[in-house]
Every structure is written in C-alpha cells, then in structure tokens.
C-alpha cells in the first residue's frame, strides 16, 4: 500500500468516526466537534491527493475549508450559547420545540 492510499484510508476512517459522533452523541457541543473532525478528514484527503498528483490546488482548497470551518464554528457556538440561555441544556433531545 502506498502512502497516499494509506492517508486516504485514514481520512475515511476519521470521517466515519465523525459521522458516528454526529449520529450517536446527544450533546450539541460533541456533535459540533464531530463535524470538525469530518472537515479535518476531508482536508487530509485533499492534501494526500495534492501530494499524489503534485498539484498545489488541493492545499489551496484546504485553506478555504479551514476558513469556512472557522466561520461555521463562530456562528454555531453562538447558536449553542443562545439555545443554552433558554433551555439550560446542550442536549439535542431537549430541542423539540419544532416537533409537529
């Protein structure tokens, strides 16, 4: 197995662990951290293939993904703080106000 295949395999394992975190954990904070883990796994695949094809563009895309992740964290944590003020909880099972 060459190093690119190994890194992409590692990236997919990390992505699946992130998916499991989003699906199985109940704390909004933990779900959010799992989303960060998934974004990081995607970055790993980008850099691995940038190395594989000897192109710089993959690294530029990682830079943009990081910028979007930073923006997402700022807004997402603001949302969690606001929800915590009204519900006194970060458990997503308590957020049932929109249940039909």
């Amino acid at each position, binding site marked *: 197995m060459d*190093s690119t*295949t*190994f*890194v992409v*395999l*590692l990236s*997919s*394992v*990390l*992505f*699946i*662990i992130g998916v*499991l*975190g989003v*699906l*199985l*954990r*109940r*704390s909004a*904070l*933990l779900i959010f*951290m*799992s989303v*960060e*883990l998934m974004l*990081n796994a995607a*970055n*790993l695949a980008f*850099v*691995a293939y*940038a*190395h*594989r*094809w*000897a*192109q*710089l*563009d993959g*690294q*530029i895309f990682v*830079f*943009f993904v*990081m*910028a*979007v*992740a*930073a*923006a*997402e*964290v*700022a*807004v997402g*944590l*603001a*949302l969690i*703080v*606001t929800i915590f003020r009204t519900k006194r*909880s*970060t458990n997503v*099972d308590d957020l049932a106000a929109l249940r039909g």
Partner: protein
Amino acid sequence: MNPDLPILVLLGAVSIASALGLLLSRNAIYAALFLVLNFGVGAVIYLLLNAPFIAVVQVSVYAGAIMVLFVFVIMLLGAERLSPGENPPGTSFQRPLAIALSGLLMGLAIYVLFARQPPAVAAPPPDSSPLAVGLSLFGPYVFPFEVVSVLLLVAMVGAVVLTRNR
C-alpha cells in the same frame, strides 16, 4: 520527499485513537483535548505530505483558535459533564441503524479506494512554500479569497447578533 509508511502508520494509530476518545468521552473538555491531539497529528501528517503552510495554519487556526473557542464556550456554559441520557420513545432502533449505516459507508469507501486505483505519476513535487501558496491565493484564486473575507465578516456579524443581550 516520499513519506515513510511506518511513520504514517504510527501517526494514523494516534489519530484514530484520539478520534475514538472524542467519540467515547463522557466529559466535553476531554473530548475537546482529544480533538486538539487529533489536529496536532494531522499537522504532522501535512508536514510529511509536503504541505508546510497548511500544517502551520492547521496548528494556529484549528488547534489554536477554533479549539480555544470550543473550550471557552464549554467552560462558559458549565456544560462539560455529559449525561448518557435515555432514548426518546420510539427511537431505540436508531442507534444500531446508525452504526450499521456507518459501517456500510466505510465499506463503500474502502471498495472505491481499492477498486479505482489511479495510475502512477512521476511528476516532481510542486513548490509548496508559503510564497507559492500565497502567489496562488492572490493569483488564480483571488476571487474565492475575497468571497472568504466576506464570509468571515458575515460570520462575525452573525455571532455578535446571535449572542447579544436583548
């Protein structure tokens, strides 16, 4: 520079172990610190893959700014202890289904990765110094770069508006 596979295997083991620690921890602060470890290992892998600029940005933005924000919010809310909780009625089938579907996704990823091997290329590695990355950012990618600055402004305004006291 061709990274050594044994070093990558070792880094991958630490990376997966820290991700599992994030998945299984019962304390949000521990989970955040596991994620910092994961990002640090990711930065070392970027260095091995000839991406020094991305490695430094990973440490300063991800492991630095983003995780400090996480830890700050966890401590501000005092929400570090996570109770296991019980399933809401009628959803007890969802957790095994989630694990089964994630396993299926993993299998598909492995199949696609090994069934469609790309041909070997013998191109020389590109110049990935910060200078080259900067020239690329302000050359062909200048429009996305400007869009990102607007996005960050919108996120900043959004965070201020959402958390303001009314």
